[in-house]
C-alpha cells in the first residue's frame, strides 16, 4: 500500500523540475506586475487623465489587432494552420490605403467629402488584402493541404518574406506617411475619457465590422458552411459543402478584415512601411491566441486585452520596477504576453472553440 502511494506521488514524473520552474515564473511575474503597478501609480508620474488616455489608446490599438487577429483565428479554425504571411496581407492593405489616400489628398474630395474619400481608401485596402490573401491560399497553401503542418508553415514564412521584400522593391523601402485628414483632428471627451476622433473612428469601424462578421458567420449559409468545415472537414464535404470554396471564403474575409485594419492602422500611426506587417502580425497572432484561437469573439477580446497590456504595460509595470525608458520595451511586453499565454493557457481566455488535438 505504501508503495502504491509512493507511485501515485511519482505521477508527476520527470517533469517536476520543469513544473517547479514554471511555478517560479508565475510567482515572479505576478509579484513583478503587482509591485510595479503599485509603485507606478503611487509615484504619481502620470495623472489620472493620462492613465485614461493610455487606456483609450490601448483600446483603439487593440481594435486594429482584433481585426487582423480575425484572419489568423478563422484560418486556424478551418485549417489548424497559422497563416504566417497574414501580417503581410495587412501591410498590403495599409499600403494600398496609403496610395489611394495620397492620390485623393490632392483632390477636392479630400477636403469636402473626407469620409467618402476614406471609404474609397478603405475599400481599396480591403480589396487588395483580400486579393493577396486569396492568391496566397490558392498558390501556396492549397497544394500543401494534408501535409504535416510544418510544411505549409514554412511556406508561409517564405511567403511572408517574399511579400515584404516584393513590396519594398515595388514601392520603395521608405515609410509612407498617410496624408493628414482635417476632419479627423481633435476629439471628444466621454465620461472623463478623452477620445481622439481617429480612435473613435477605429473603434466604431471595428465594432461595425465585427457585428457584420458575426452576422455573416452565424446567420448566412456560407457562414454556416464555414463553421461546418471548422468542425469536421470530411463530414462537411460529405454533406455537400464545397470545402475549397469555404476555405477560400475564410481567407477572403480574413484578408478583408486585415485590410480594414491596415487602413485604420495607417490613420492611427500616420505611416506604414514594408516591415509593418511583421510586428503587427505577431501581435495580432498573440491577440488571437489570447482570446482563444479558432474563436472569432476571442479575437476581439484578445485584441482588446493585448492592446491594453501593450499600452499600459510599460508605464504601469516596467516604470514602477525602475526600468528606464520603459516605452522602448512596449513590444517586449507584447511578446512576453505571447510567451506567457502559450505556456500557461494555450487555449486562451475564452478557450478554444475547437476540440483539442489528440496525439
Amino acid at each position, binding site marked *: 500500500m505504501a*508503495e*502504491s502511494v509512493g*507511485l*501515485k506521488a*511519482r*505521477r508527476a*514524473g*520527470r517533469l517536476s523540475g520543469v513544473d517547479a520552474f514554471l511555478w517560479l515564473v508565475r510567482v515572479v511575474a505576478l509579484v513583478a506586475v503587482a509591485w510595479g503597478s503599485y509603485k507606478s501609480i503611487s509615484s504619481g508620474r502620470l495623472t489620472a487623465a493620462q492613465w485614461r488616455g493610455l487606456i483609450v489608446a490601448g483600446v483603439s490599438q487593440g481594435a486594429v489587432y482584433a481585426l487582423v487577429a480575425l484572419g489568423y483565428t478563422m484560418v486556424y479554425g478551418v485549417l489548424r494552420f497559422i497563416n504566417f504571411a497574414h501580417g503581410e496581407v495587412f501591410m498590403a492593405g495599409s499600403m494600398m490605403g496609403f496610395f489611394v489616400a495620397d492620390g485623393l489628398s490632392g483632390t477636392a474630395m479630400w477636403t469636402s467629402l473626407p469620409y467618402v474619400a476614406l471609404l474609397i481608401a478603405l475599400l481599396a485596402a480591403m480589396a487588395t488584402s483580400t486579393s493577396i490573401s486569396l492568391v496566397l491560399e490558392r498558390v501556396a497553401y492549397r497544394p500543401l493541404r494534408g501535409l504535416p503542418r510544418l510544411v505549409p508553415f514554412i511556406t508561409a514564412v517564405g511567403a511572408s518574406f517574399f511579400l515584404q521584400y516584393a513590396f519594398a522593391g515595388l514601392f520603395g523601402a521608405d515609410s509612407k506617411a498617410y496624408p493628414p485628414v482635417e476632419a479627423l483632428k481633435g476629439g471628444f471627451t466621454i465620461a472623463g475619457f478623452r477620445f481622439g476622433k481617429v480612435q473613435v473612428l477605429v473603434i466604431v469601424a471595428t465594432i461595425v465590422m465585427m457585428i457584420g462578421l458575426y452576422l455573416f458567420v452565424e446567420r448566412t449559409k456560407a457562414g454556416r458552411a464555414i463553421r461546418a468545415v471548422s468542425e469536421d472537414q470530411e463530414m462537411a464535404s460529405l454533406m455537400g459543402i464545397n470545402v475549397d470554396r469555404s476555405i477560400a471564403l475564410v481567407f477572403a474575409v480574413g484578408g478583408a478584415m486585415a485590410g480594414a485594419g491596415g487602413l485604420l492602422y495607417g490613420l492611427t500611426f500616420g505611416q506604414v512601411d514594408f516591415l509593418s506587417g511583421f510586428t503587427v502580425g505577431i501581435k495580432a497572432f498573440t491577440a488571437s491566441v489570447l482570446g482563444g484561437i479558432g474563436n472569432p469573439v476571442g479575437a476581439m477580446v484578445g485584441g482588446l486585452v493585448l492592446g491594453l497590456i501593450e499600452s499600459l504595460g510599460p508605464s504601469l509595470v516596467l516604470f514602477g520596477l525602475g526600468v528606464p525608458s520603459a516605452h522602448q520595451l512596449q513590444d517586449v511586453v507584447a511578446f512576453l504576453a505571447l510567451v506567457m499565454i502559450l505556456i500557461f493557457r494555450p487555449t486562451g481566455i475564452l478557450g478554444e472553440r475547437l476540440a483539442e488535438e489528440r496525439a
Partner: protein
Amino acid sequence: MVALLDITGLGKSFGGVRAIDGLDLHVDKGEIVSVIGPNGAGKTTLFNLITGLIPTDEGKVEFEGVDILGLPPSAILERGIARTFQNVRLFPEMTVRENVMVAQHCRTKAGVLAAIFRTPAFRREEEQIRRKAEDTLGFFGNRLVGYRFDQLAMALSYANRRRLEIARAMASDPKTVLLDEPTAGMNPRETQELTELIGKLRDERGYTILVIEHDMRVVKGVSDRVVALDYGRKIAEGTYDEVAHDERVIEAYLGRKEAAG
C-alpha cells in the same frame, strides 16, 4: 504459478462513456492470452491503461507483484512491458535498423558528451546496440535483414512494417509483449506466418504475450486462454473453444452486427 500481470477492478471513463468497467485479468508467466471483443469494447484502451499512456480512474495493475499505476510509459517499458500499436507507429524517416536501435533507449545510457567524444564505452555500447538490433530483426527470417537494414521505415511494405513494430517491441528486452491487432490487413499467408511467429516469441524468447485480435484463426492457433470483452467488461474467459461457444460472446458480436446493420 505466480501471476505475472495482475489487474483488479480496472475502470476508466471518457466523459460520460464507461470505456473499462470493473475489469479483472490475471496473466501467468509464459501464457499467451488473447483479448477479443467487438469494436469499441475497450481492448486498445486496456492496453493504453496498462502501458501508462492514459491515466486510470480506479483499480489496480500489478506487474511482478509491483503496482505500476501512475508510472510514465517509459518506466513501464523499463519494467518489461512492451507493446505494438494498432495503427502502426513507426518512425518513418528513420531506417529499419535505427527504429529497432531506438527501442533500446531505456536499456542504454551513453549520453551527449560520450557521443561527442566517442569514448570507448560509447563505441562499445553502439556496437552492442547495433548488433542486438540486427539479431532481433533476424528473428523474422530474411524479410528485414541485409539491405533492408538501411531502408527507411516508410519504404517498407505494410506487412513488413507490422513486423518491424514487433521487432521494436522485442528490442527492449521485455518480459511481456502486448500485440494490438498484429495481423490486421494481412493476407492469409502472412497471417499464418505471424501466428507461428507469436508462438515462437513465447517458445524461443520466453515472452508472456497478450494479443488483441479480430481474426479467430489466429486466436485459435495461438492462445492458451481467451478473454472476451464487451462495453469494457469481461464477459467470458477460458480456452478458445469455451469462449467461442459462449452465448454471451456470440450475442455480443451479433448484437453489435445488428446495431450496425
